[in-house]
């Protein structure tokens, strides 16, 4: 407390030099911790413990006769790194994820833009159609693709009917089929993400560009696109992560022959019963996921922070 200054602002000339400390009720600092305690307890027990256990499991070894053995070794990781079979599976997984992401960006972003420019009631209705599938289980949606694919499936019938192909194309149990089906499942996420970033756009900015003499294509390229790039990027992160860890769709469309990381882990766990190996695949998937999501988000944020903050 600055004594010199205090004397100046006092009304009474003879006030005491220091006032006694106030008797205040202690404001309980534990309230937020108490409120978060149920959630913290739940997560500590139900999330952290199982994940740690899975990690530990991946360090165990497995033998056909002995089952899971409680030793610590990184043999599983070594196996995966060394074996070309696993390389192939992981490569396929990320390749599919990358193509799906690209397709979602190519088709989802323009769709979001088109939706934005629609007038109600069309806009609301179309948004419902685009976002609605997110509420429907992925199994049902993928079933539809399973029905559409196949040599007598509608897709082939349609293409042959149009004269585009002579013999039916194989979609089922191919990478192409998985990619198409995954794109269908995940593109709404891209639309959502771009839509959210479009909401922050001021429509007058486009008009300003037009008034300054820019043609529609230039406006798109120089004004609109740069502003929705953050939305496209964060949507891509979501789509890539979901595609890389996708299970149901590759399982149904890809079948038992075409494995991705998730179906590989499922196989090891429930068929081969090599739990440690399955756990290893899971751990690697988790690490890849976290790195992608957190790392890319940081990059996007840092680059685009000054535009929007």
């Amino acid at each position, binding site marked *: 407390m600055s004594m010199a200054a205090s004397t100046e602002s006092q009304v009474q000339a003879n006030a005491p030099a220091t006032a006694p400390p106030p008797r205040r009720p202690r404001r309980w600092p534990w309230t937020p911790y108490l409120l978060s305690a149920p959630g913290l307890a739940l997560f500590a027990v139900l999330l952290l413990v199982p994940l740690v256990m899975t990690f530990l499991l991946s360090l165990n070894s497995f033998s056909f006769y002995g089952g899971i053995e409680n030793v610590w070794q990184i043999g599983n990781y070594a196996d995966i790194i060394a074996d070309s079979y696993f390389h192939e599976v992981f490569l396929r997984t990320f390749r599919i994820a990358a193509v799906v992401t690209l397709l979602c960006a190519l088709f989802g972003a323009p769709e979001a833009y088109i939706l934005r420019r629609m007038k109600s009631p069309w806009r609301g209705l179309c948004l419902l*159609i685009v976002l609605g599938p997110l509420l429907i289980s992925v199994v049902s949606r993928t079933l539809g693709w*399973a029905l559409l694919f196949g040599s007598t499936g509608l897709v082939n019938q349609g293409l042959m009917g149009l004269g585009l192909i002579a013999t039916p194309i194989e979609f089922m149990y191919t990478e192409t089929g998985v990619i198409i089906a995954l794109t269908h499942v995940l593109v709404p996420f891209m639309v*959502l993400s771009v839509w959210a970033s479009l909401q922050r756009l001021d429509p007058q900015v486009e008009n300003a560009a037009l008034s300054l003499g820019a043609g529609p294509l230039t406006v798109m390229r120089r004004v609109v696109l740069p502003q929705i790039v953050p939305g496209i990027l964060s949507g891509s992160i979501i789509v890539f*992560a979901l595609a890389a860890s996708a*299970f149901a769709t590759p399982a149904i469309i890809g079948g038992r022959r075409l494995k991705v990381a998730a179906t590989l882990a499922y196989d090891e766990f429930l068929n081969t019963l090599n739990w440690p190996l399955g756990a290893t695949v899971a751990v690697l998937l988790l690490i890849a996921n976290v790195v992608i999501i957190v790392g890319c988000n940081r990059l996007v944020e840092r680059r685009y922070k000054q535009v929007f903050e």
Partner: protein
Amino acid sequence: MNRNGPLALIFHVLFLGFLLAPILIVCAVAFTSQGYLSLPTEGLSLRWFRAIGDNPEFIRAFKDSLLLGAVSSTLAILVAVPAALAIARHQFFGREAIQALFLSPLMVPHIVLGIAFLRFFTMIGLGGTFAGLVLSHVIIILPFALRLILAASTGMDRAVENAAASLGASSWTCFRRVTLPLILPGVASGWVLAFINSFDEVTMTVFIASPETTTLPVRLFLYIQDNIDPLVAAVSAVLIFLTVAAMLVLDRVYGLERLLVGKGRD
């Protein structure tokens, strides 16, 4: 210039067609009168819908899914509301970390969670039980509920709580009479979004479900892996109809966009 040109509209229609095709085909196949899968179908009948009645395991799985969704969502809300209030109202050490922790299930692939829970539940004796399913679902649906409730809490005018306190309300009364009514839309929509996510979840549930306690998506998935026939299309069609109906109601009452995009930024 702010209208869509013909090219854009064609693209848009094709896009919608792409999105709707699998869903429509499922519904179309479900109405087939034939005993096997054939496209295009020759006649229409409800025989496959009736056949669902002959497969009680689907009906049972449906009920289990509903129950699981309801219980998990309610539990998730009970945990999320105090947590959201703590994060929104107080500045305390570890706030950011705790929020990140509660939202972290979004980053963990469901396949990883399936494996982790299988291992964990087996060890503590909850393997294949309904309780295990509930607990695992609560974990993955909590982030959805939390985000919406958090947005509602931060969007509220805080001065109103100060006003209540100045008029003599205790913390609990203030929560009950002022805060809760004002965040109720967020809580309700959080519940709904959590329910939807629990109901549709398949990847993780496939690992920890057992033949006695199984959800509908898992039963469908396992069935499809062996054969694809109009029966499973009929079940899916029923699901789709119900979802569309629920979606229309949701949109009318709350707004689908608000539900999925979330009100306000987190």
